[in-house]
C-alpha cells in the first residue's frame, strides 16, 4: 500500500473536497478519485494508518495493567462515550475526548464520535441490510413527515455495487421487505443459535431467524485481496482495528483504493470552520479549515464538495456556514435543517440460559450474532394497532457461560473455583432495534454563545422518544420473552432500559432528502437545494429511519451521488 499524500498542492485547489473520512467520506473519496478527480479529504482528527495504528489489536486482557478497566479520571474525559458500553483501555483510542468536543443536551442525547481518519468505520457494528420499498414508501403512505424522493429501484444497483466491494457475509432468504444482496458465504450458527432459530421458526409461523448480514470477509475476492484484505480470523477484537482487514473500514478499503489512483490528498487535524460560498455564482467554492495543531486557518477550493462529516457534524457545518445570503445556514431555505433527528431505539429484549447440549462447544469467536428481520406491519395480517413501523432483533452472546457466571452464583472455594474453569450453561441474548419516526420538534441548533476551543458554536441537541416508540417497546420486550419460552430456555429475563436517542449510534436526519425545496434540505441526488455543487451523503440525509443498521444505505447513496455529481460536472452543470 502506497503511503498517503498529506501535503496541500500549491494553489490549495482540487477537483473535489470531501469533508470527513468515515464510512461515507471514504466512499466519496474512492468514487471521486476513481472517476479521475483530484480529491482532498479533510479529517478533523488524527491519522490512523491501517494496521500500523491499531496498537491494541493483538493485546490480551493481561497486557493492560487493569485488564481494560478505566480510571474515574479517564471515564470523565469520555463521559459521553462511556455511555456506549464499548469504552475500555483497548478501544478508547477510537472514541472522542468529550471534554475537548463539548455539546449541550437539553434532553439526554448520546453522541458517540470517532474523530480520526476512518471515523466510526473502525468501530461500527458492521451489520449491513438493504431497505425495501416498504421503507421508502412508508412516510408517503402514512402521511408522516415527507416522502422519500427515491425508491428501491433507484438505489438497488448501488447496494450491489457497494456490497461487492466491501464484502458482506450473508444468507439469501428471499424476503421482500429485506432484499437479498450480493453476498459472500454467511456466518454459521452455533448449536444454541440453531436451536433457537429452529424453535422460533417452528413456533411462530415461519418467523425467519438468520445470522446477521455483516461486512466481514468470509471469503476473499480478487478485489479484496488486491487491497491486502484477508478473511475473518474469528478473534472478535474488531473495534480495535482489524490487522487482517477482514471487516470493512475506510482505512482497510476505500481510502487505500482512493490512494491507489494517485488522485488523493488527505489532510488530518483539519477542523472545518465553514463552507465558502461564491457570491456571484451561488455555488460552494471551498472550505475554511483550522489546523488543530497550529491553529492556522486555511482556505481550500474545489468544484464539488461532499459533506460526509457524520450526521450531526455535517448539519453543524451547514448551520455555521452563515452569510448575508444565507443567514440561517446553508440549505436551510425550508427551515428543516437541524430538524427530524432520528436514531433507533434499542436496549430492549431478553436473555436466557439453556440447560441441554452440554456435550457441544465451539471454537473461535464469531464477529456477529443472530438477526431476526422485522415481522410486524408488513401487511394487513401483521398490522399493529398501537404503533407504526417495526423492529428487528440482533443477537448478542450465544455462548456457553464462562467464569463470569461465578460472580452472581452463590459459592466460594475450591470446587466452585475449579468449576469455573469449564464452560457452563448455554446463554443467548437478543436485543431489538426499533424505528424512530421523524419528528420536526426533535432538533439540533447552534448555541448562541458557547463554543468549542476552535470558536465553533456548540451543538444543542433536544430530541426524545414519543408514544410510537414507547408503544413499540412493549411488544419488543414481550415478543423476545415469548421466543425464549418457545425455545425452552430457563432463567429467562426480559429487559427494557430505554437510555436515550443516540445510544443506538444510528443517529440520522437533520438535512433530509425530499422532492420539494420548501420542505427538505437535499434533493433525490443528495444535492443541497439551491447549491448544486454541494452534496450531503451521510446519515444527515435520511428522511425516515427504518429499523435496520443504516451504513449500507449511506454508502450506496454516496456512491450514487458521486456518479451523479461527476456526470453533472462533465455536462458542465455544476
Amino acid at each position, binding site marked *: 500500500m502506497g503511503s498517503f499524500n498529506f501535503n496541500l498542492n500549491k494553489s490549495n485547489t482540487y477537483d473535489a473536497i470531501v469533508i470527513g473520512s468515515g464510512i461515507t467520506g471514504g466512499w466519496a473519496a474512492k468514487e471521486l478519485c476513481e472517476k479521475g478527480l483530484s480529491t482532498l479529504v479533510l479529517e478533523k482528527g488524527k491519522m490512523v494508518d491501517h494496521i500500523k495504528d491499531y496498537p491494541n489489536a493483538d493485546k490480551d*486482557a493481561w497486557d493492560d495493567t487493569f485488564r481494560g478497566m478505566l480510571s474515574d479520571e479517564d471515564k470523565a474525559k469520555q463521559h459521553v462515550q462511556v455511555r456506549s458500553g464499548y469504552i475500555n483501555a483497548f478501544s478508547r483510542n477510537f472514541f472522542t475526548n468529550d471534554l475537548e468536543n463539548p455539546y449541550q443536551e437539553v434532553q439526554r442525547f448520546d453522541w458517540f464520535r470517532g474523530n480520526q481518519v476512518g471515523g466510526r468505520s473502525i468501530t461500527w457494528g458492521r451489520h449491513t441490510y438493504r431497505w425495501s420499498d416498504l421503507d421508502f414508501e412508508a412516510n408517503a403512505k402514512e402521511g408522516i413527515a415527507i416522502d422519500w424522493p427515491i425508491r428501491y429501484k433507484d438505489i438497488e444497483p448501488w447496494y450491489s455495487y457497494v456490497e461487492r466491494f466491501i464484502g458482506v457475509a450473508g444468507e439469501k432468504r428471499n424476503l421482500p421487505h429485506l432484499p437479498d444482496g450480493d453476498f459472500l458465504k454467511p456466518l454459521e450458527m452455533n448449536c444454541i443459535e440453531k436451536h433457537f432459530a429452529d424453535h422460533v421458526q417452528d413456533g411462530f409461523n415461519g418467523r425467519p431467524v438468520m445470522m446477521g448480514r455483516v461486512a466481514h470477509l468470509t471469503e476473499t475476492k480478487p478485489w479484496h485481496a488486491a487491497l491486502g484484505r484477508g478473511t475473518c480470523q474469528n478473534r472478535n477484537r474488531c473495534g480495535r482495528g482489524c490487522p487482517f482487514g477482514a471487516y470493512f473500514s475506510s482505512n482497510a478499503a476505500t481510502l487505500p483504493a482512493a490512494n491507489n489512483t494517485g488522485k488523493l490528498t488527505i489532510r488530518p487535524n483539519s477542523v472545518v470552520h465553514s463552507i465558502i460560498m461564491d457570491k456571484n455564482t451561488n455555488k460552494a467554492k471551498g472550505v475554511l479549515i483550522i489546523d488543530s495543531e497550529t491553529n492556522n486557518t486555511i482556505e481550500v477550493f474545489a468544484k464539488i464538495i461532499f459533506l460526509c462529516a457524520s450526521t450531526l457534524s455535517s448539519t453543524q457545518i451547514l448551520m455555521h456556514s452563515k452569510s448575508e445570503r444565507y443567514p440561517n445556514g446553508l440549505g436551510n431555505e425550508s427551515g428543516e435543517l437541524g430538524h427530524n433527528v432520528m436514531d433507533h431505539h434499542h436496549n430492549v429484549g431478553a436473555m436466557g440460559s439453556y440447560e441441554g447440549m452440554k456435550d*457441544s462447544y465451539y*471454537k473461535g469467536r464469531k464477529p456477529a450474532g443472530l438477526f431476526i428481520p422485522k415481522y410486524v406491519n408488513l401487511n394487513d395480517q401483521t398490522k399493529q394497532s398501537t404503533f407504526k413501523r417495526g423492529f428487528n432483533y440482533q443477537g448478542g452472546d450465544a455462548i456457553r457461560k464462562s467464569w463470569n457466571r461465578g*460472580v452472581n452464583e452463590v459459592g466460594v472455594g475450591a*470446587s466452585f473455583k475449579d468449576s469455573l*474453569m469449564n464452560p457452563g450453561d448455554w446463554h443467548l441474548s437478543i436485543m431489538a432495534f426499533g424505528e424512530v419516526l421523524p419528528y420536526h420538534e426533535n432538533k439540533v441548533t447552534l448555541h448562541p454563545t458557547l463554543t468549542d476551543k476552535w470558536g465553533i458554536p456548540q451543538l444543542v441537541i433536544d430530541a426524545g422518544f414519543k408514544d410510537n416508540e414507547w408503544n413499540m417497546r412493549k411488544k419488543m420486550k414481550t415478543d423476545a420473552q415469548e421466543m425464549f419460552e418457545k425455545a425452552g430456555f430457563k432463567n429467562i429475563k426480559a*429487559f427494557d432500559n430505554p437510555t436515550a436517542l443516540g445510544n443506538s449510534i444510528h443517529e440520522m436526519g437533520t438535512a433530509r432528502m425530499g422532492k420539494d425545496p420548501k420542505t427538505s434540505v437535499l434533493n433525490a441526488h443528495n444535492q443541497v437545494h439551491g447549491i448544486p455543487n454541494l452534496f450531503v451523503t451521510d446519515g444527515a440525509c435520511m428522511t425516515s429511519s427504518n429499523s435496520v443498521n443504516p451504513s449500507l444505505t449511506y454508502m450506496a447513496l454516496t456512491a450514487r451521488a458521486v456518479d451523479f455529481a461527476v456526470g453533472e460536472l462533465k455536462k458542465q452543470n455544476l
Partner: protein
Amino acid sequence: MNRREYIQHSTLFLGYTLVSGTVMSLLASCEQEAKLPWTPTFFTKAEAATLSAITETICPATKTPGANDIGVPQFIDLLTNNLLGQKEQAFFKKGIEDINADANKQFGKDFDLCDTTQKEQILIALDKSSAPTGMTMWGKPMEENPAPLSFYRKIKNLTLMAYFTSEKIGKNYLAYDPNPGKFEACRPYHNEPNWTES
C-alpha cells in the same frame, strides 16, 4: 451445574478442607502481622491481609493456582489506588472493616484468622444477602435502575476477573487461542476448559 449442585459441592468441600484450613489459619495467626509478603499501595497491612484472605477464600489454591499465587490482592490494592475515586476507596475500606467486624462478632477473631470453614460461612452468607450484578448486554446495563452493589459482590467480581483474565491462568489453565482462524460452530465437548476470552 446448577445452583443446588454448587451448594452441594461446596458443602462436601467444607468437610474436606477443614483440616488443612485449620493448619493454614494456625500458620497465618503466627505470621500474618509480622509479614504480609507484599507491600500494599493503598490499604494498610492489616486491611491487605483481610483482602488476601477474602480473595483466597473465593479462589483457593487447588490443583490450579489460588488467588494469592496470581497476585489478585495486589491487583485489587493497586486498582483501588489508581482507578477509583475517593468515595469508592472509602467504600472498599469500609467493606473490609465490615467483614472483619462480622468475623469478630461470629467467631471472636479477625477474618484472616478464621479457619476456612468460618471464612466460607461468612462469604456465603454475604453471597446470599448481596444483590446480583445487573443484566448487561454489549457492555451496557439492561436494567433501568440496578440495585447498588455491595462491597462483597464487587470484590467477588474483581477477584474472579483478576484471576481468570491473568496471563498465568489465561495461557496455562484455560484454552488460549487468540487467533482461532476458522470458526467451528458446533463441536463435541469433552470437559476441556473455557476458551480464554479475547
